[in-house]
């Protein structure tokens, strides 16, 4: 039983890692071309936004200069940008389940270290966004992964400054949840450290399909002050974790509030809080035992909530993030809500806490050093017989990005990164700790 659960958890980790490899990132030279601004105007270091870039985004990709509508653009201008990254990487994991005799599943399994290295490509992000008219903006973001599979990640239209007010902006479609610490704008890229574990974490054996970093389907109302120091957003979202064609007649709610303030000699500091409350089905209508998509039943609740901050001290800045998560007992134990007798004795809803500190040193707009520490700690397992620390995570990442080319037309960054992750008692066969690491270096470019 322990091995089985550990295996499922391990597969979950692999899925997260794969997801991490596919996490898209924003950095939109199309805007730079439109407004004749350089990357560093909107980004601390692309793709991470500074407050000017965040304000631009919150204004609906408008600088509010009176020339934002496409009619003021040259006829040849088209709001499209591409991003890709040829790279060399080395990924290692110490406890992967392998057949004792390669090619012979009947020989049994054992755990082995797997190390892979070589040249690779990140895939291709295709990103188009801008204004359809004054105060009507849009975005369509798609990605070709490195196997050529096509993913539609973002797809929305936004009505900006309704009633001539910055406090009323309505977005409808598929989009990243509003946050100042955007996973899409993260500066780390490796398979181990290139995503926020907290944004995708679910405990071992948990059936909740949700990630704070997943793009969701729904509508968002967002408002902000003129300088963007004060922001709020409220979203109503399908209970499908962003999957299309999966109506559930159930909706989730996400809210975010941030406040910025200036400290003399230090600059802008920002604090924020967020919360997500949702439901997920625990079983489906079936045909011959096969689930019929979109017929989820036995919905049970889950929530994620926390606080975050962006702190600036001279050339240093720190992003701090805290999350508290909890899932319903049926979701946490992977049991259908109509079969409570299948719950293990003493079963409860799992809870956990997590967070990260990400530090940057911006030597100048063309060189940034990165360090990140992330952790997740289970505070209550869904099954009381499970060791309390199963699934706990720690991830360390360091790296730097150097931008030898940074113009208003294109950008090129040399990226190097090393990341190490340890997850407690998740090895698929022995239930021992898993350790994985990634080293990555490559040319990250967009144009």
């Amino acid at each position: 039983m322990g091995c089985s659960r550990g295996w499922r958890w391990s597969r979950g980790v692999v899925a997260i890692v794969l997801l991490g490899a596919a996490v898209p990132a924003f950095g939109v030279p199309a805007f730079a071309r439109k407004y004749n601004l350089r990357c560093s105007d909107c980004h601390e270091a692309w793709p991470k936004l500074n407050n000017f870039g965040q304000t631009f985004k919150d204004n609906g990709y408008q600088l509010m200069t009176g020339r934002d509508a496409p009619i003021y653009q040259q006829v040849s201008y088209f709001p499209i940008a591409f991003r890709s990254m040829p790279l060399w990487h080395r990924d290692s994991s110490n406890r992967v389940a392998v057949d004792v005799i390669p090619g012979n599943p009947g020989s049994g399994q054992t755990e082995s270290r797997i190390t892979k290295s070589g040249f690779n490509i990140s895939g291709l992000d295709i990103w188009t966004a801008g204004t359809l008219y004054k105060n009507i903006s849009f975005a369509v973001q798609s990605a070709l992964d490195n196997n050529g599979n096509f993913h539609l990640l973002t797809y929305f239209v936004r009505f900006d400054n309704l009633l001539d007010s910055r406090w009323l902006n309505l977005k409808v479609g598929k989009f990243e949840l509003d946050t100042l610490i955007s996973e899409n704008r993260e500066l780390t890229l490796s398979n181990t450290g290139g995503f926020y574990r907290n944004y995708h974490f679910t405990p071992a054996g948990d059936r909740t399909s949700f990630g704070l970093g997943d793009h969701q389907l729904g509508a968002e109302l967002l408002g902000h002050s003129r300088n963007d120091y004060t922001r709020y957003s409220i979203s109503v979202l399908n209970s499908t974790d962003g999957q299309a064609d999966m109506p559930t007649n159930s909706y989730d709610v996400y809210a975010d509030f941030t406040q910025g303030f200036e400290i003399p000699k230090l600059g802008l500091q920002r604090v924020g809080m967020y919360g997500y409350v949702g439901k997920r089905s625990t079983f489906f209508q079936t045909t011959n035992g096969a689930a019929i998509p979109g017929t989820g039943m036995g919905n049970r609740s889950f929530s994620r909530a926390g606080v975050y901050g962006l702190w600036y001290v001279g050339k240093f800045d720190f992003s701090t993030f805290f999350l508290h998560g909890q899932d319903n007992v049926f979701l946490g134990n992977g049991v259908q809500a109509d079969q409570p007798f299948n719950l293990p004795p003493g079963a409860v809803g799992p809870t956990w806490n997590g967070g990260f500190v990400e530090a940057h040193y911006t030597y100048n707009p063309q060189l940034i050093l990165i360090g990140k520490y992330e952790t997740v700690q289970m505070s209550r397992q869904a099954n009381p017989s499970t060791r309390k620390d199963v699934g706990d995570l720690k991830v360390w990442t360091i790296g730097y990005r150097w931008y030898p080319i940074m113009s208003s037309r294109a950008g090129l960054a040399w990226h190097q990164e090393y990341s190490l992750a340890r997850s407690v008692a998740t090895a698929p066969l022995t239930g021992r700790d898993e350790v994985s690491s990634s080293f990555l270096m490559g040319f990250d470019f967009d144009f």
Partner: protein
Amino acid sequence: MMKGSSVALALLVSYSLFISAQESKIGRLTGNANSGKVLYRRYCITCHGVHGDGAGENAPHLDPKPRDFTRAAFKCRSTPSGSLPTDSDLYNTISRGIYTTGMPSWEPLTRQQRADLVAYIKTFSNRFHEEPPVTSVPIPPEPPTSAESVQAGAALFQNMNCWSCHGKEGRGNGPSALTLTDSKGYAILPFDLTRGTHFKCGETSRDLFRGLTTGLDGTPMPSFADALKPEQIWDLVHYIRTLAEGDRGFFHRAKSERKLP
């Protein structure tokens, strides 16, 4: 002895002017040019250029062209035509941006950062070292909008030849519009006064009054400080307000009309 004192005084004045050119004072804020240089290189350099001469890499693509800071001729000032702006003028321009140009609002920067940028921008021209600070022109209280005031403003719009550039209806399409150039010889179009309540140097009626009084240095827009009395300038402001179309301009006009007898 007297000669030595004069030299010392001159040196002291020069030094104090030099120091003031390295700093900016906006209210209680003191901007620092060294800090401003870092910010300038991040945010401003692509348009205004490394030397502040408006020859950044994007300058060829911009219309109107970026400001040449080495000339120290600024559009949006509270000071008389031809004189240097106050630090607050530069700060306000950075904060507000210049509507209908490539210059956005930099209000997302902190107040200190904007003050630092002002200090650095002043280092591009020796005028800030050599010339003493100039005080802002006074703006008298705005009289109430009335039919008489608007009509007087309309007459002034005709008599002062505003229409020759801005057009009969204020659309920026007067007979001279296509012949205008800025102080560096680049073609420049008059402002379309019907665009709404935003103007190049601000949104309020006081901003409009200030622009008419001081002129926009570096552009063909002259100062009317000597040609018109303050109450006449207010008349002109009231008339220009009626030209705005759409957006809040419509509501503004309707509101103004309701006030008319």
